[in-house]
């Protein structure tokens, strides 16, 4: 998101907030009710439009239109797969609008039409030069868009019918969709596969296949969207997913503040905010607005003033090869460590602030991670929503399985080792399927395992806390410095794609 886009979103949200505040003071309550009904539609429309607006351009013809459309299609498909069978008695229950245990077909149709209408409207800007274009390049022909929308709708209906049938078939459907999302994710994160996908799309578009590059496939927010969808499918498979209307579901998955850099919210938490907002609570609105603006300002300062300045001198593959002195190599590494944190947490602040302006409390993603005295606490405060996701959908199921069926003969420490190593390696390759990201994950896994064993040893030897306050403070400061430097050194793997260059930089950092 650029600064201008953030300002436009914030001004839009503030205008809505001001109107909602005015509505709250209106005597009859009709405007208040209108504001309450309008808000979810506004959030949906803004999110769908933002999906196209924030998508970066790609050299493949019309791809910057089709990628957001594919996001919407995938989202609708997953929603259809998570539908609960309608009760045999049929009919609409009185509480359905407020808490749709089973989505109302009429509301679903209206939502689908609104989404399709927005997409068609965006596509039609191709014909109006003065308005063209919300997308980075001219959208495709409206006929092609119509065919795509109808095909998507047909697929969703088919999947919804399949989902309404027996439970075993629903489980297969969930598994198939999870596999599809993981396959897409892997294809987008593995450079040769991404380049192959680009070549395929270029051949469809009648463009030069020889110029295909992994950089052609910049799918806005897919890393986050895929993980939200997998979370929904897994929770659906385990029966923990609440019933969501299409409108709620799409808004949750593509909520615009969290499109570009997360956080990865949970559907049941998000929908509570979506349903619970009350235009009449003036004090709560004022607090939301004040807090939202505060977070946006903090985020803008972190990202655009500090992180972008640090980016000028942050470690990168070029300057890593040029740096001549160990001391300055450390400076570049520190600059990278703080740049990464401030950039990412700045974006998170902006996302949380924009969410607050709409009355949505997105989860925190960072909690002073560089001030943590051990690596376990670091990972409880760095990219928290991603770490929680992996904890919930990989680490916990895997270790549970290893303790029981799969590896009953393994010692607890072996189970922890396997769980931590695979989890961290997966978190690594979430950023890209390359050796350096995998090594970064393994580096952290080694650190986490070492900390786990150290803690177990300290517990078994009954090492207590230092007797004096000053010793405790000194020990805490030492631990913070140690943890920070372990994390900072880990960024060497993260930032340098060539393992040999990373090893050379380690040698340089330690005076080699």
């Amino acid at each position, binding site marked *: 998101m650029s600064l201008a886009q953030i300002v436009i979103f914030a001004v839009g949200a503030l205008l809505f907030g001001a109107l909602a505040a005015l509505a709250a003071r209106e005597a009859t309550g009709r405007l208040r009710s209108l504001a309450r009904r309008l808000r979810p539609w506004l959030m949906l429309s803004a999110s769908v439009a933002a999906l196209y607006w924030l998508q970066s351009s790609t050299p493949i013809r019309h791809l910057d239109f089709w990628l957001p459309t594919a996001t919407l299609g995938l989202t609708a498909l997953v929603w259809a797969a998570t539908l609960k069978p309608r009760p045999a008695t049929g009919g609409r229950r009185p509480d359905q609008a407020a808490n749709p245990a089973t989505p109302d077909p009429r509301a679903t149709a209206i939502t689908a039409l609104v989404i399709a209408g927005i997409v068609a409207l965006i596509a039609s800007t191709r014909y109006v030069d003065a308005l063209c274009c919300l997308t980075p390049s001219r959208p495709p022909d409206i006929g092609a868009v119509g065919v795509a929308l109808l095909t998507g709708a047909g697929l969703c209906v088919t999947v919804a019918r399949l989902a309404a049938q027996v439970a075993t078939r629903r489980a297969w459907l969930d598994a198939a969709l999870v596999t599809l999302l993981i396959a897409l994710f892997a294809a987008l994160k593995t450079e040769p596969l991404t380049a192959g996908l680009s070549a395929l799309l270029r051949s469809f578009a009648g463009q030069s296949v020889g110029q295909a590059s992994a950089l052609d496939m910049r799918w806005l927010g897919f890393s986050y969207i895929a993980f939200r969808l997998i979370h929904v499918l897994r929770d659906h498979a385990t029966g923990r997913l609440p019933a969501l209307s299409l409108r709620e579901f799409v808004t949750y998955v593509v909520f615009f503040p969290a499109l570009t850099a997360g956080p990865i919210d949970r559907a049941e938490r998000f929908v509570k905010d979506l349903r619970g907002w009350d235009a009449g609570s003036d004090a709560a609105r004022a607090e939301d*607005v004040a807090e939202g603006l505060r977070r946006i300002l903090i985020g803008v300062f972190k990202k655009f003033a500090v992180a972008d*300045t640090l980016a*000028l*001198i942050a470690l990168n593959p070029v300057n890593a090869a040029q*740096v001549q002195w160990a001391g300055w190599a450390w400076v570049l590494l520190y600059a990278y460590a703080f740049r990464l944190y401030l950039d990412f947490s700045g974006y998170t602040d902006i996302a949380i602030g924009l969410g607050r302006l709409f009355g949505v409390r997105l989860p925190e993603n960072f909690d002073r991670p560089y001030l943590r005295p051990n690596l376990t606490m670091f990972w409880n405060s760095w990219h928290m929503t991603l770490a929680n996701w992996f904890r919930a959908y990989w680490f916990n199921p895997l270790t549970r399985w290893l303790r029981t069926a799969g590896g009953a003969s393994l010692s607890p420490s072996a189970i922890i080792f396997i769980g931590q190593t695979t989890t961290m390696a997966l978190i690594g390759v979430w950023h890209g399927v390359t050796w350096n990201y995998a090594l970064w994950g393994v580096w952290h896994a080694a650190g986490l395992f070492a900390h786990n064993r150290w803690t177990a040893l300290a517990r078994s030897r009954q090492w207590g806390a230092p007797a004096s306050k000053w010793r405790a403070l000194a020990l805490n400061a030492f631990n913070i410095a140690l943890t920070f430097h372990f994390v900072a050194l880990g960024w060497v793997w993260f930032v340098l794609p060539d393992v040999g260059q990373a090893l050379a930089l380690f040698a340089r950092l330690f005076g080699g």
Partner: protein
Amino acid sequence: MTGVSTWRIAIKAVLLFVVVNVMFALTDPLPTIGSLSAYNAVFPGRPRLPYSDFPDRAYNLSLHNLNAMFAAHEIAAGPKPAGEYRVLLIGDSSVWGFLLKPEDTLAAQLNATQRILPDGRRLRAYNLGYPIMSVTKDLLLLQHAMRYEPDLIVWLVTLESLPASRQLLHPIAQNNAGAVRALIADYRLSLDPSDPRLLNPSFLERTLIGQRRNLADVIRLQVYGALWAATGIDQDYPDYEPAAIDLEADDSFHDLKPPVLRAEDLALDVLRAGHQLAGDIPILIVNEPILISTGRNSDIRYNFFYPRWAYDQYRVIMAGQAQRQGWRYLDLWDLVPMSEFTNSAVHLTPGGSRLLADTIGAAILSAPPGRR
């Protein structure tokens, strides 16, 4: 937080924003801010003035804040050491060292061989060259450099830096319009102080918002100091096309046509102003080496820049002017062989730069100019 306090905060923020912007426009603090520098304190000073169109590759950037430029230079490191014979080199990109590493520039080559003057002082040259040819830009930099107590100024010029019509094309001159106007007035230069190329920022352009780019440049210059210190790199070194040897059959020089180049076409008054500005500090004017082509149409032109008729007459004018004015003048136009030029007819290779340094160094030592 209540709605009322939110509004109060918003109103205070807007008021503060307006006050800060108005104060910024009224006080113009950028020159003062430019003087505050991390160079020569946290980072080593740069051996040449900041300049680059590719900051992310050069760890350097072009800006218009003279205070910031000089504060980043090693010349601002501290008081002049005792026993130093301080030589300031001013001129264009050939002096600055385009495509040359810091250790290969003219100043660095002059310093590489420890040159001791008869009175025991050690010659120490400082590179104050700055790309793009204009003697008015040189005069502006010289005025700023006088505070660093030079013992000798070596001013390298070439015909391209002298056409009167081109003097105000330089962004440094355009963005320091007040200082240029003062020079025009003080030394009665034949330049138009109301020339529209001299920028007159409006009130809004002088506010913090209007000056944000210039402020950001000063900050970025400081930040790039870390990479300068870490890598020793201050320039991008792209692959380049060698300077043209085969030339167009064109005998024009800018808007001038043969056969006569008049002294009035050249900004010789700027050179005279330089001498006045330097006072009793001697100036050695050097006609810098140019590429002398032997390729196609070399009977018409010496190189891409110069038709023979114009350049030959320029040399005669310069020699005559130097003699009449009593300037110390060194004409080194044909010193460097064709093979020792890089991408332009004035940019030298390290070998060419060494040759020039040896000649200028010898000239300084053979008759070290004392204070006049």
